[in-house]
């Protein structure tokens, strides 16, 4: 505490294998940092839980709502009437996330059939592709994507496959 008494040995080195100790004051900035973090911790905790009433579940809902406001979901009628090119653009990302495991990033197939050749097992029209994606082909391991993706995303990914795979 007393600045004038810097570097005064405590005289205990005989009890510490010859190691001497000073009893210098705690650096003011260090003490200030300690007090500041404690104050911050209390303020943050009280604010988060009791003032702002935040929770991770609430924050998530808010984030999703903000995203929905920024990128509003088009209604089905608009989707149906939409430009296939725009749909396909959006469908690409869905395909890359969900489909490449079986159909490959180049749509050349693998576990699932090739989507770029002329052969369409279940039909190659946009409507037929949409149906296959929606209902799946359970006996072949093709998942029923309708409930997972929803009609809008199915329309998008179908448009992408139809365009990129050369559907009829």
């Amino acid at each position, binding site marked *: 505490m007393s600045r004038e*008494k810097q570097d*005064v*040995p*405590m*005289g*205990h080195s*005989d*009890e510490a294998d010859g190691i001497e100790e000073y*009893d210098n004051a705690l650096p003011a900035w260090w003490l200030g940092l300690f007090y500041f973090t404690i104050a911050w911790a209390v303020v943050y905790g009280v604010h988060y839980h009791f003032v702002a009433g935040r929770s*991770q*579940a*609430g*924050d*998530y*809902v*808010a*984030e*999703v*709502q903000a*995203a929905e406001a920024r990128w509003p979901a088009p209604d089905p009628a608009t989707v149906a009437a939409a430009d296939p090119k725009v749909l396909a653009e959006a469908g690409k990302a869905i395909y890359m*996330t*969900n489909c*490449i*495991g*079986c159909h*490959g*990033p180049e749509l050349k197939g*693998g*576990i699932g059939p090739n989507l770029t050749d002329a052969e369409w097992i279940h039909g190659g029209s946009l409507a037929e592709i949409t149906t296959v994606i929606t209902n799946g082909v359970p*006996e*072949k*391991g*093709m*998942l029923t994507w309708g409930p997972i993706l929803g009609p809008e995303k199915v329309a998008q990914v179908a448009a992408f496959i139809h365009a990129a795979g050369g559907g009829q």
Partner: protein
Amino acid sequence: MSHPDNNSPQSPAPDSWHRRTLEHKSALFAVLTTVAISVGGLVEIVPLFTVSAGPQAIAEVTPYTPLEQAGRDIYSREGCVQCHSQMVRPFRAETLRYGEWSRAGEYTFDRPFLLGSRRIGPDLHRLGGKYPDVWHYEHMKDPRSTSPGSIMPAYPWLLEDRIDTADVQASMTALSTFGHYTQAEIDAAPAALAKQGEEIVGRLRQSKVENIEADHEIVALIAYLQRLGTDGKKAIKDQVAQTERAQGEAVAAGSAQ
């Protein structure tokens, strides 16, 4: 023990309280240290055993089937948790990629928990039902056949090694201590293993995988992976709808004022 320097003019003060009591009395020092290190753990961990402060249970979550439990043991053995998390965080970027974020109540029967701490590969908590069985078969045989560019090692031995029914029953017996299984379920394990195994083998056969039998390790692992994150989906959906309604009402009430 004398301290000659203590009496010298240089010396700042006689022995402090800390020195006189604690450092002199090592047992007291040890006891106080034990108290100091115990407080935080007690305050944080003990409330988790209470209903109100602990994880919210989800009624639809049930224990793993014998085959899934065998698969889970393989997942533990191979250290899948070193690269794959099983915890989708409540961020839009995560739920877009993986699906619904993970709730505490979904892990009720996870002994040990397998949340993971590093995603060298993607999160697996919503893997169940995402891909067909044959995808997992091909992926474990050669990860790059299903995920081009993947850095995951192949696990060909899972296609050859077999699970041991008695071993699975030993696991179930240990887990029955915590109420995961009844004795009847343990006794019925051989039949349950065969039944669920044959279902998966049947689906693999349809996809032209011929050389796999119901007791191959890959079958158990597929059973486990297909179960991941599938319990309690409806409960979560209801919960989400409820939260959204509440938020919507709050917003409506706020704008009305």
